[in-house]
């Protein structure tokens, strides 16, 4: 079964991604737009580290040659006049932009079911040996994760605001990296919650993830939160120095200190997933890592803080969708109340936004009202600082934290998760709040054949460390 999964990776040079898209996309619904095949004609520039490699782009990242719908009726016809910086960089490195991938509307959701394009079906649902029930690819970047898992692309870009890359990576059995906040440009990335949004990378293995990440890890003056080159270099040098202090043997991790945060084993964590995490930790221990139990006491408050902050920013960012300058528009009937602009816009916004988006806009709008601001938004900012402090304190004693990416394997579609869809976020939102890098790597499969993901979280700018540890984790399971 694993061998079958790995066909996509080992044979990628000879696989035609476009053929895979043609064959599989109808059942998986990962791509919502497929770009016509074009030769990447840019031959002038120097090094082309991604020459000919097919990359899929989440549909909330702007592209000039394809619509950018954010899976919303609001933007169903929307065509951006510019490429996102990350897309521009991919093109410059010779990548072939294959198309746009399905996602939850504006990135809001964890199952990729809030989409005007319909849900993404986890491609592993179609493999022999699994239970045959259609399962979720996870969200919100479900289409990107599924495209990689189904061999429809070399790599895919997603966005991660509270776990939207790590969760689908975990459900689909691929690598998903949410880099440190401020490393990958957000110019051209449709904002959900600016202070949390990160562009993330999906690929079949750590090495490929690294290749794409490296191509995108440059300062962008168009993004005011993009970190200057100097700080990037310093962080990379710090990571390198840390790794140099480990054992000289490449296969050994002697000197690595792994923190196991006790708060990341909630009651809802499935026993099997819990076991896989423990297995990973003991494997890493067996190749020399030191395991240290740590505590991140603010974790339990992180989820509420996340929902207040993310929804507040979302309500602000969604305000621009009023049908005036672009996008979907519902004309108000002549008998309607035209006394205020908001009453006129309400027709467009009521029909243009899906249920989940409306829910969060309402929550965020409330959190920002004068009466609620102090109790909600300000409190949430305080909690966010506590969460950051937690991480900073932990990273004084350990190099990385390891925990489960998800409380369970991919849930069947149509199952009403209720509040548990939010509980899931407990494992992913703290790293988002703290702006630290986190990477989900596949760590084997459960008895029913569904993959389990393990997250590695490091301090800001320590992507190299994450990748080294991630390679070791995946190495354990691919040997």
């Amino acid at each position, binding site marked *: 079964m694993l061998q079958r999964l790995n066909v996509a990776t080992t044979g990628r040079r000879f696989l035609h991604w476009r053929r895979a898209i043609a064959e599989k996309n109808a059942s998986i619904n990962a791509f919502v737009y497929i770009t016509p095949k074009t030769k990447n004609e840019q031959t002038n520039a120097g090094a082309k580290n991604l020459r000919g490699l097919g990359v899929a782009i989440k549909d909330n990242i702007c592209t000039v040659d394809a619509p950018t719908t954010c899976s919303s009726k609001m933007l169903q016809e929307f065509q*951006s006049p510019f490429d996102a910086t990350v897309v521009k960089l991919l093109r410059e490195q010779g990548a072939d932009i294959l198309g746009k991938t399905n996602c939850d509307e504006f990135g809001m959701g964890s199952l990729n079911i809030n989409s005007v394009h319909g849900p993404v079906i986890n491609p592993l649902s179609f493999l022999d040996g699994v239970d045959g029930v259609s399962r979720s690819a996870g969200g919100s970047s479900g289409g990107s994760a599924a495209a990689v898992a189904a061999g429809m692309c070399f790599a895919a870009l997603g966005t991660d605001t509270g776990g939207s890359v790590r969760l689908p990576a975990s459900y689909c059995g691929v690598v998903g990296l949410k880099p440190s906040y401020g490393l990958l440009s957000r*110019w051209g990335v*449709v904002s959900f919650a600016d202070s949390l949004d990160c562009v993330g990378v999906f690929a079949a293995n750590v090495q490929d993830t690294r290749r794409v990440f490296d191509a995108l890890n440059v300062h962008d003056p168009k993004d*005011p*939160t993009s970190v200057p080159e100097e700080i990037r270099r310093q962080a990379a040098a710090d990571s390198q120095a840390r790794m140099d202090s480990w054992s000289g043997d490449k296969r050994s991790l002697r000197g690595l200190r792994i923190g196991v945060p006790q708060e990341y084993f909630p009651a809802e964590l499935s026993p099997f997933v819990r076991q896989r995490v423990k297995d990973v930790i003991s494997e890493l221990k067996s190749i020399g890592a030191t395991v240290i139990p740590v505590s991140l006491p603010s974790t339990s408050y992180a989820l509420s803080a996340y929902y207040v902050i993310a929804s507040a920013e979302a309500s602000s960012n969604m305000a621009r969708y009023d049908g005036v300058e672009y996008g979907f528009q519902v004309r108000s009937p002549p008998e309607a109340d035209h006394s205020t602009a908001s009453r006129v816009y309400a027709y467009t916004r009521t029909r243009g936004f899906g249920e989940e988006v409306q829910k969060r806009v309402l929550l965020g709008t409330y959190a920002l*009202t004068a009466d609620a601001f102090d109790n909600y938004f*300000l409190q949430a900012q305080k909690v966010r600082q506590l969460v950051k402090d937690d991480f900073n304190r932990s990273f004084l004693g350990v190099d990385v934290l390891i925990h489960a990416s998800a409380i369970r394997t991919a849930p069947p579609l149509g199952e009403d998760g209720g509040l548990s869809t939010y509980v899931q976020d407990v494992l992913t939102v703290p790293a988002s709040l703290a702006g630290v890098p986190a990477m989900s790597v596949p760590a084997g499969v459960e008895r029913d054949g569904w993959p389990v993901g393990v997250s590695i979280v490091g301090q800001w700018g320590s992507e190299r460390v994450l990748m080294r540890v991630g390679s070791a984790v995946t190495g354990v399971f691919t040997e």
Partner: protein
Amino acid sequence: MLGELRRGVSPFVLRRCFHDVRQYKEDIRWPGWQVIIGIETHAQIKSRQKLFSNAFNATLGEASNTHVSPFDAAFPGTLPRLNHRCVDLAIRTSVALQCDIQTRSSFDRKHYFYPDLPSGYQITQYYAPIALNGCIEVVSPDLTFPVRIKQIQLEQDTAKSTVNPRSRASQLDLNRAGAGLMEIVTEPDIRTPEEAGTYVRTLQSILRAVGASDGNMEEGSLRCDVNVSINRVGRPLGTRCEIKNLNSIRFMMAAIMHEIHRQRVVIESAPDPETATVPQETRGFDEHSFETYRLRSKEDAPDYRYMPDPNLGTLVLSKERISQICRDFPELPSQTRGRLREQFGLPERDIDVLLTIDSERKIPFDGESLQHLDNAEAGAVAYFDKVCTKQRDPKVVVNWMIHELIGKLSARGESFKDNKVTASQLGQLIDLVEDGVITRTSGKHLLRHLLENPTQTTALQVAQDLRLTAFSHSPIQNASADCQKQDVLLQLCAQAIVHLPAEVESFRRGNANVLNRIVGQVMKASRGRADAKAAGVIIARMINEPKQ
């Protein structure tokens, strides 16, 4: 950061020091009442590009929606990028208004739905503005008073939405959307409509002097919101009403005047005038009826849901940056006035004229200076300064500028900015006259010629081309040229004597006045080039001593 999310100054502190600022002065128009006025001014920043996008700022009259970047139209995926030229101009303004410049400030989003706001929020500085606690010394003819500046904040301008009255369709012009504004907020230190007018004029001249804004109310680059309250003397302050969007000083004063009377009527006609209060409202001003009208009451006040902008972070200003701006600081209007008075000894009347003309000067973008230019674009004061170099007498210069140059320009229906005579040329012209190379009359003729036929050549060259150089005793050092001129003058005088025998006879008999007519003949024959004084001396000598 969390601390910054509370608005800075405690109103309590302001209340306490309130009455220290101005002493109550009875106004015969409303005896027994005290009027309290505060003004919020929105000044468009004179930057080439908008506050957060690279779109160029439009000038008045340009086609709609031609200066719009995707960010200005709130396209998804766009992000703001702070234009530091705007920040520098705000710092200049803060220095000029004696504010405490905040080395750390931040941006917030103010939310409301309106077609003139494409993103659904305006980026402004609500929690931590760039400057606090300033002061302007306002000088009016009868009174000098301080107006404290509460704060200066940077923010985005909105788009312009207009409703076509016939089709009732809204039309949207995004040219102005996202342009940089400074909101300059005073403490309630103003007491009369006239003071309000003087304050705005003073602010205008300061903004223009530092190049931060055109300050042009007619073109909308300066707009005022005015807060007015009234109270009986010795009683607590009244409830204020805000009058929005006043776009001329005249309208602002009229609006305040109307508001004072309206509020008085509200209180005095109440069942219990002693305890009555005015309902807190936001009001508009009707430019036709000259009255204010209710826009919304306090209950309808919108909740703007202020939120720190998650993209822009903290604006950190280094001490070096601020001191650099202080080093290259332009001269403020009060300094200019002082300098013209003390350094040049000009009378106030002439200073007023020069400053008034100077206020029509075009303000260049991004705080750049045009004062180095030799022409009218430098502005009247810089032009005057330039003409005054080389030890020219400032009083002579100001006379030539105000009476001759400006006079001739207005005769042509032009203003100073249409003046094509360079400062160097005017200086040379004055020298030619002062040195007696040409007569004053020829000087005026030369000036008119230069205005009609702009040229790059020197005034002397043009004077020579026009044969204006005078026939006279001349202090010019060229002896042969001098002699030549002297010969011509003698010849002209001799001819005049021959031409007017009756007058000559009359003069000889002792009628001194008739000499002017003979000199007039010389002037006529010389087409004004002759030195009348010298001609008079020569003619008198010729008549009295005919043998020579």
